[in-house]
């Protein structure tokens, strides 16, 4: 095997403040832009790399390619009109936005959600998490040249989208979790069709284990690469699988149970090495947890009951002055909505707290120096970031 040992003397010196002295005129350095076109599944963001040979000495993240001013748009919409917008903050796992927003409104408006709806919401969130992981598992392989995982996982994701379609009426932006509850009940025979998807998924995941996790190439390129020192978790706001891969068994589903998670049996997947491989295995474990949870929820959830609480007439729904923060464990870590109301029919402020905000900016910039150019994509994917959360 090749063992590349970079010549550290070529590295730029740092001044007293730790600022690098990089002079492009010397010809020792090159600026290389990774992105903003979609390199893998990292979404439309770019990293401005400064490289020296194939070693990256500095990386600056650039976002804004997907900025639509969601938070501002929401301030101009009534509480019900915000509902169709929120899901658009995150394509792969939109449901968290729907849940957090709905729960925040319910909290400030004093609405009690019917039991059926809380089970349904949990189901939807786990289905969404499953899909998000399908994109991750496909993407992490893709970032390392393992194209087949992307194809398989896209197929499995599509099967789950079929279930989303029949349950919610849409494949990507489900718009199913409404403030007050959910829009409907399970269709006839849903459980059986879901089971078919889950067992198909398990078969494919088994293949993923063989082709990816047991693959020496994959292991070589991910083990010991992109290590996040667990000491950085707090300063950099690292949550979710990224932290769990470093031995921090924190999962809001356990630590701060919401919806019906306190009525479900599950274990939180963890790993210790805090490298790309560890982060991938944690997610592989999480997929299985989601599959088990979906089965469990379908078994345990009430067969019937109201899907919606009584809510005020949405056309002139005013919510008293107040503020709240609603959070949950999404596939990438802590997802939250900070909602401030001022007594009018419009939100005063909505702030979306997506895990990518910290993972893809400060943390990524911290991790990049010293990596090989060819590992940057895998590193980015391993952090499992979705740029729209950054630039809401």
């Amino acid at each position, binding site marked *: 095997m090749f063992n590349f040992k970079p010549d550290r003397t070529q590295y730029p010196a740092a001044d007293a403040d730790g600022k690098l002295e990089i002079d492009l005129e010397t010809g020792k350095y090159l600026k290389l832009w990774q992105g903003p076109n979609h390199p893998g599944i990292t979404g439309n963001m770019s990293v401005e790399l400064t490289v020296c040979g194939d070693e990256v000495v500095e990386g600056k993240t650039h976002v804004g390619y997907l900025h639509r001013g969601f938070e501002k748009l929401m301030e101009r*919409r*009534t509480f*019900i*009109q*915000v*509902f*169709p*917008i929120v899901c658009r903050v995150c394509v792969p796992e939109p449901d968290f936005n729907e849940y957090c927003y709905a729960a925040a409104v319910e909290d400030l408006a004093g609405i009690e959600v019917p039991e059926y709806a809380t089970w349904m919401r949990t189901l939807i969130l786990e289905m969404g998490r499953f899909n998000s992981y399908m994109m991750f598992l496909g993407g992490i392989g893709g970032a390392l040249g393992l194209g*087949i995982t992307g194809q398989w996982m896209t*197929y499995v994701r599509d099967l789950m989208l*079929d279930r989303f*379609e*029949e*349950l*919610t*009426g*849409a494949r990507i*932006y489900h*718009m199913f979790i409404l403030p*007050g509850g959910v*829009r*409907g*009940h399970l*269709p006839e025979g849903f459980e059986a069709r879901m089971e078919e998807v889950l067992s198909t998924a398990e078969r494919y995941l088994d*293949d993923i284990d*063989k*082709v*990816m996790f*047991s*693959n*020496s190439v994959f*292991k*070589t390129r991910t083990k010991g690469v992109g290590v996040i020192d667990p000491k950085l978790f707090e300063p950099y706001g690292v949550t979710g699988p990224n932290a769990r891969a470093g031995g921090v068994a924190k999962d809001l589903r356990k630590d701060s149970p919401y919806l019906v998670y306190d009525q479900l049996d599950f274990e939180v997947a963890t790993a210790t090495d805090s490298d790309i491989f560890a982060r991938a295995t944690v997610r592989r474990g999480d997929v299985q947890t989601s599959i088990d949870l979906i089965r469990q929820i379908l078994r345990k959830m009430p067969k019937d009951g109201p*899907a*919606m609480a*009584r*809510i*005020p*007439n*949405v*056309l*002139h729904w005013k919510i008293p002055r107040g503020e709240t923060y609603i959070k949950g464990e999404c596939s990438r870590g802590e997802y939250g909505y900070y909602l401030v109301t001022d007594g009018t029919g419009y939100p005063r402020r909505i702030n979306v707290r997506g895990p990518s905000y910290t993972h893809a900016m400060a943390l990524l910039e911290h991790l990049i120096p010293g990596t090989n150019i060819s590992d940057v994509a895998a590193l980015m994917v391993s952090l499992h970031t979705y740029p729209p959360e950054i630039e809401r």
Partner: protein
Amino acid sequence: MGLREVLTPFTVWKHVFDEPVTIKNPIGRPAADRYRGFHQNDMASCIGCGTCEAICQNAAIDMVPVDGIETRTGDSGLRPQIDYGRCCWCALCVDVCMTGSLTMSNEYTWVDTDPDAFRFVPGLEEPWKDDEEGYEREGKRVLSGIERIHMEEMPPETRISNFEEIVDGYSRAEAILEADRCVECGLCVATCPAHMSIPDYIAAVRDQDYDRGLEILYETNPFSEVCGRVCTHKCETSCAALHEGDPIAIRWLKRHIVDEVPFDRRLELIGKPAAPTGRKVAIIGAGPAGLTAAFDLARAGHGVVVFEALSHAGGMMRYGIPEYRLPYEALDRDIGVIEAMGVEIRTNCRVGRDVTMDALRRDYDSVILAIGLNMGRSTRVPGTEGPGVEKAVDLLRRITDGEEVPVPERLVVIGGGNVAMDIARSMARLQMQKYGRVGVTLTALEDIDHFLADREEIVESREEGVQIFDARGPQEVVRDESGAVTGLRTWRVKSIFDADGRFAPAYDEGDEQIHEGTMVIEAIGQMADTSLLEEALTEALEWNRGRIRIDGAFRTSEPWLFAAGDAVKGPDVINAVADGHRVARTVMDELAAREVMQ
């Protein structure tokens, strides 16, 4: 890392002979049953309320006229047109739809080179307009309240022994909840004869701004306290909320606003009349039409004198409507505001007896005739002449005046309108006070579904023990040898209302009944007492099928004389109010025109 990890990945070569999972031709792949595809709209049940437009966060919906769809009561005639360049397929429009007419198909594949093709009115000609599949909301609408907030009423056993007001009125909390249900589509405004700004004053209730609410009421109705209690509330029959639930309690919300504003504050809010113009207008009849006109004219600075034959102002509002529906103090407050505008009401002054039409014509710039329909009709079936047969309007008037009226243990009322209910329920109360029980039978030509009375009147009458026999035609007041009334003989009515809502009663002589009672009260049609006009003026005026002919602006054929209210149009308080405004406007225009001429 060993050999195993090099070889394991190759095990997935087993898939090499698998069938591909891709779909060859995705165009035409049917979407799920719940899929939110292109919209569908059932044109016949859509009422064009525009709630879909109001909720659309993308501003993708316009309300547009559609060929072949007429504007009519409870239907604006508009239909939603959707711009699919903006639609985000959230289906809030479907969820909020008041009638459930708007749904979605599961059609989502459509290719067209013309972008404008993707902006159309669903429900006209798109191929999927009748498809079964596609998103429909589960059950009834949940985005606005379905059920009316319950109105507390005195229970029948309590209310039957007195004339106290039955309806409690909403508390603030209840009113806010009821007002919350309104979607502000405004379909009701066209139905209200006075075109009251209903959504606006309901919004004032929601905002708890009763001053604003009261000002809005007074823009169109100086009898809001009266109408808040006894209006026939036709507005509620065109309310969008009735399609999947109860219509908004528009009438009770109106009452609630007035209830919440103290009388002195009311006077403050209405303010002072304009500077005097020096013009004088005489109004004959202090009913709702006359007094509304008086209010408008006085507010504009004209001198107004209202001539009233009876001892109190109010007309049928006082002498026709019983106290348990409309307490006299409520009426007095409405009239009080009108008098505060400087209107002089001369009661006990009958035109034709105490003052002549000629004198009015001479002494005033204009005269408005608003005499109402105060004479009761008789069926004139055999036996109606003589003692023991009364007319409802006369009895009601005497009860209001505090006169002693004969109260038999059993009596029969003829008629199925509100006056019949009023007299039946009033007599029932008097019977309760005198005998401790109710003995009222009510017969009407109409079948119960075609009663002219309000539904709640029928329900409440029955609750109070009034026995109702519908589709019975009176044939004879039965008397014994001494001539005393013993009952009413009726035949069953076999005909029905025609498509135009007209009715030619025909009888089944084989189905005869005698309804026992020692008094028969006729509560059928009413007519105007136009004798005050005297012969010369009656001859000079033009008439229209029994009523003084007026034009659209309430002018009679005599340039100095105007007419309004039940005597020329009818049939209820709110129509009289609307007439009052209109005739006042005309009179003011005429006065202004004369000003210019001079």
